[in-house]
């Protein structure tokens, strides 16, 4: 057994401590150590975007971040998007637009969309497509996802 490192971090606004091996990714820590399985693994090499979280406000694929790198950082995952018992407007828009089929890519898309709309409240379709090009969806052909993002943008500005 490898020795483990103590890591102190803040996840979805709460202080969290965990132990991890140097070789463990943040994705693995979130899922296996902290039982936060909303963040999904699709490829484990940074190409599908299913494991997207924010690290100090910037989106990252958590499979390419080591658990130990989270020391002293702030992380937001899909579990931290809803406002208490109310869904976030992005989550509502995804449901109202049927923007998910199997749903495995949905957490990554929602986290990435929030990162976009928090900084750019009124992105063009082209900008949305560019920003979300790191997130693969194989079910929807993206059409309804783009529409959901456009609707969410409108509602978040209102």
């Amino acid at each position, binding site marked *: 057994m490898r020795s483990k490192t103590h890591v102190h971090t803040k996840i979805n606004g709460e202080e969290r401590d965990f132990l991890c091996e140097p070789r463990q990714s943040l994705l693995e820590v979130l899922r296996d150590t902290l039982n936060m399985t909303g963040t999904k693994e699709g490829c484990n090499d940074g190409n599908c975007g299913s494991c997207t979280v924010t690290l100090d406000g910037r989106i990252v694929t958590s499979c390419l971040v080591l658990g130990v790198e989270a020391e002293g950082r702030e992380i937001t995952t899909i579990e931290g998007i809803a406002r208490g018992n109310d869904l976030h407007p992005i989550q509502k828009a995804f449901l109202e637009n049927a923007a998910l089929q199997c749903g495995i890519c949905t957490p990554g898309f929602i986290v990435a969309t929030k990162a976009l709309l928090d900084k750019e409240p009124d992105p063009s379709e082209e900008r949305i*497509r560019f920003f979300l090009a790191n997130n693969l969806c194989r079910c929807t*052909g993206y059409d309804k996802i783009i529409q959901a993002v456009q609707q969410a943008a409108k509602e978040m500005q209102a």
Partner: protein
Amino acid sequence: MSTPSYSVIGTRPIRHDGADKVTGRAIYGADFQMAGMLHGFILRSPHAHARIKRIDTSKAEVFPGVNAVVTTKDFPAVDDSKIVDLGEGNTPLRWARSNVLADGKVLYRGHAVAAVAAVNAHVAEEAAGLIEVEYEVLPCVLTAPEAMKPDAPILHQDLKMKELGETTGKVSNVAEHFRHVMGDIEAGFAAADVVVEREFNTATVHQGYIEPHNATALWNNDGRISIWCSTQGSFVVRDATAAILDIPVSQVKVTPMEIGGGFGGKIPVYMEPVAALLSKKTGRPVKILMPRQAVFEATGPTPGSYMKVKVGAKKDGTITAAQAYLAFEAGAYPGAMVGPAGMTVFAAYDLANVTIDGYDVVVNKPSTAAYRAPGAPNAAFAAESVIDELALKLGMDPLDLRLKNAAKEGTRRADGPKFRRIGCVEVLEAMKNSEHYKSPLEGSNRGRGVAIGFWFNVGLPSSCTLNVTADGTVNLIEGSTDIGGTRTSIAMQAAEVLGLKSEDIHPTVVDTDSIGFTGVTGGSRTTFATGWAAYEAAQDVVRQMKERAAKIWDVPSETVEQAGGVYRSNGHSIGFKELAARIGETGGPIVGRGAVNPRGVGGSFAGAIVDVAVDPETGKTTILRFTSIQDAGKAIHPAYVEGQMQGGSVQGIGWALNEEYFMSGDGRMMNSSFLDYRMPTALDLPMIETIIVEVPNPGHPFGVRGVGEANIVPPQAAVANAIAHAIGTRLTRLPMNPPAVMEAIWQKSTSPRS
């Protein structure tokens, strides 16, 4: 058929599992955790074709943190001639089992050889690296035409070719050659004024679901096995695992977790029996997650193919003869889905003279699995390219040529069946009348392409139970994995019968112990067949509710009528909710049951219209506009029907333009990651327009046909036709990536042809 008016069907309610899936709470297979759980890792072959001379697991077994190692020797001995049905057809058990853990030979790079269970996945992977496997590397063969040559390396010494239904006794890589004949093909071509004949090749492509395969198994101390996994068919996993482990099906319980895409690729079992073996050896639950590279290298892609298609027509556009030669790569074991290709290749046309030859050929690539209308997109790429070229030669509008020869009710297909009511003409007319087709396309290096495709859809058994609750809602229990909103499309059909709202039905997908047999979520069957089971169960509830109302009013139950959830008799009336509140006092629980094995399957036609721009400097094709048109029969939830059409269209676009297994000569897939296996991203696409055509299927209570598959059949050909019109020369090989397009442009400039 008159158009009935519905109150729930055709509306767009929020899906029942929506909140779970946008908050991260939905539990997919990989999310499943259990106390004491071990983690497995599978060692895979580095060679495409090799004899296994020796496996030494001793070093792995003593590695710290390792609990068990298994190889094919850990499977029980069973009769080699046993045949099992693994969801989409019959397979000899020895093949099904040796694909799970190689027995004697490895047949493709990535073929599973051994597995380790350990305290965590990293330790299991490290230990797997200590397993010594001595291989005698054999020459490999990677394409159907190569594998059909007389001197080709043979994959299976026990595979005897079946020729036109007869076993020949000849050892061959060709598992089967079949032929469909209708009319007189020679006379048909003799009567033609114009004949077009072309050869086509398509590369192996993968379903590309975002969630890798996963399986957790517990072989309990009472001898029963529990499995939690992401599968399209929990009962298939149950039956296949039981067969491979040679135990009764009653000893296996499968719980289908949420599933992250399948498209046909999550019907076969890969790791479930292995996890079960590891659990038996360790006495603990074992979870195995498949790495993405293994998903590409070792799970079922769809066949690459070599095809020849020849079609002749008179000057007025009447097709006089159509001939197809289809050689499909099955991968390591027979079953290339060339049968469905033969059934669909000319299905859109009413033809007198047809010959179709199909070859199911094994090669040293992963064993192919279903992929959305399996076989049909390959065949349609060939046939619809030829039809397009024929239209050009005849000077006809390509949709008019198709309409002139379109299949309709009563048309006999070359493979035998006569069509019942179908929507081929309606789809073609919708294409012709679409805003897209009527719009002008201007600019150089731009082209518009159209194509039509068919998928026959399947039935298979389904079960459904409805439990009425005292607050007037209904809990719906079913066994169909929900990959794209089918909980809701099934619940809506029950709601329609009961006169309730979609939100009044609470659907749950349960394990194989808790519901009657239910076939796979595949073949576009779930909304059709499990929806029908829900319809039957709802009728059963209505019958029982009428009895309760009759009891309250003291009238004969035959006098009670129900409409819109209100029960009436002889001046009395009571609503569903009010009546539900009284079921305790009127006789106790009401449980409705539905179990169906439907025969009234209705095939679906789909069309595609696409505008492309081709960059003559780079060969890159940009999709400017795309419209998908499909006959849904009846769209239960139109938003999810559109979603199927858009998703299938985009998979077809990826297949057309970029996706392929790029193989080295020694059988290594050189692009086994999402970086290099280039699936479409949001940036690659425009919005995908949809036109839902509704020609009700007379074989379903609400007219449902099923919409999961036909939409992926026409895009490849439509894109090919659009590119041909943009650059003035035709590509006959998929994918039509920038190098292939540049090659075609250069060839055209050096040797111009018509």
